[in-house]
């Protein structure tokens, strides 16, 4: 078995292993960096009615879901543009729905995040149907 005098000789000799290791390391570091740059913990979204018009002053409830239970809701309200914002959230999985007098009760929608404190904007707005 040869004695390798320099580290780059070892790398050249075990090129496949080195590539794998380097890939793993860069993925790990890249992921950690990404997480660090996006931990504002903001969860935000919009509430609209069936026609697509924003619903202001709608109550939004967000309930954290752990592996075996669901926690009590955190409540906030949408502004005039129907937008709501939660700050400093450190949750992984949650149920969210919206309510307002005069509208049918909304359904829980479940979302799962990738890391605690992830900045998340609801991909679809919460839809409330007006009570006829």
């Amino acid at each position: 078995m040869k004695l390798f005098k320099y580290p780059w000789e070892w790398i050249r000799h075990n090129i496949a292993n080195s590539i794998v290791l380097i890939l793993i390391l860069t993925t790990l570091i890249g992921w950690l960096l990404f997480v660090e740059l996006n931990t504002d913990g903001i969860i935000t979204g919009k509430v609209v009615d069936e026609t697509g018009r924003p619903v202001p002053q709608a109550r939004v409830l967000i309930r954290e879901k752990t592996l075996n239970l669901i926690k009590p809701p955190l409540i906030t309200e949408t502004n005039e543009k129907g937008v709501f914002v939660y700050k400093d959230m450190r949750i992984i999985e949650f149920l969210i729905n919206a309510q307002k007098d005069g509208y049918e009760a909304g359904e829980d929608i479940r979302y799962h995040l990738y890391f605690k404190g992830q900045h998340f904007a609801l991909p679809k707005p919460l839809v409330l149907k007006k009570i006829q």
Partner: protein
Amino acid sequence: MNRKLLFRLIDHTILITVSVLITIPLYWVLKTSLTGENLFNYPPSLIPKDPHIYYFVDVYYWIPFLRFFFNSVFVSLIVVIANLFFNSMAAFALRYSFPGKKLLILFYLSMMMIPFQTTIIPAFLITKYMGLLNSYLGLSFPLASTIINIFVFKAAFDSIPGSLFDAAVMDGMKEHAILFKIYLPLAKPAIATNIILTFVWSWNNFIWPLIIISNKEMQTLPLGLSTFLSYFENTSGQMYAFVIMVIAPIILVFFMNQRRFISGIISGAIKG
């Protein structure tokens, strides 16, 4: 000519079938950890549908995975380093001839006849009286030296010409210097074999942590897996993500070191 081709085809068919049978369970676990299907619904599909990594995220946050991982890594580190030192020292000492050497070698070999499982009760008591329950040292001590690996080193040392040794002695080198500066660098394959064999054994060890660990924080990965199973049954996708996270490092180590692994097992088993 055709007959040869036919035989070749049969051989490949058999081998492919066996390879598929071997890898299907692993592929299945991987698929389930990425999609969560087949846990409740039926029939199962072959290709993963809508893969996601949410189960892995859950395992990371809801199980002290990092903690277990660290425990496993730390204990394995202690075990590997202890093995490297103790085994190479013992093999080196066996190079000399001294009265009772044959008896000693016989003694070492006979240790192989005592499987770990036959020592668990007194080993537990000993660990308890040493106050090492729930500790890293308690976890690593029983594994700190293995006979197979001593003989792996011995075989490597035996192939080093005696003239090197005599030359070193004449240069006035002390024995530990001879071991560490001359013998070990020339026995790199033996070192690699030692590392790989002891690492895998220590990483996979289940019964010993089961016996001496009662503190949830000190569990190693296999023990963590088993505890998780007893809490969550095996119908949660997180369970299988956990499994993947536990076996991925070893599979990686295996693929990167196949040759050494295999040759280590061969030389170790045969020496015994």
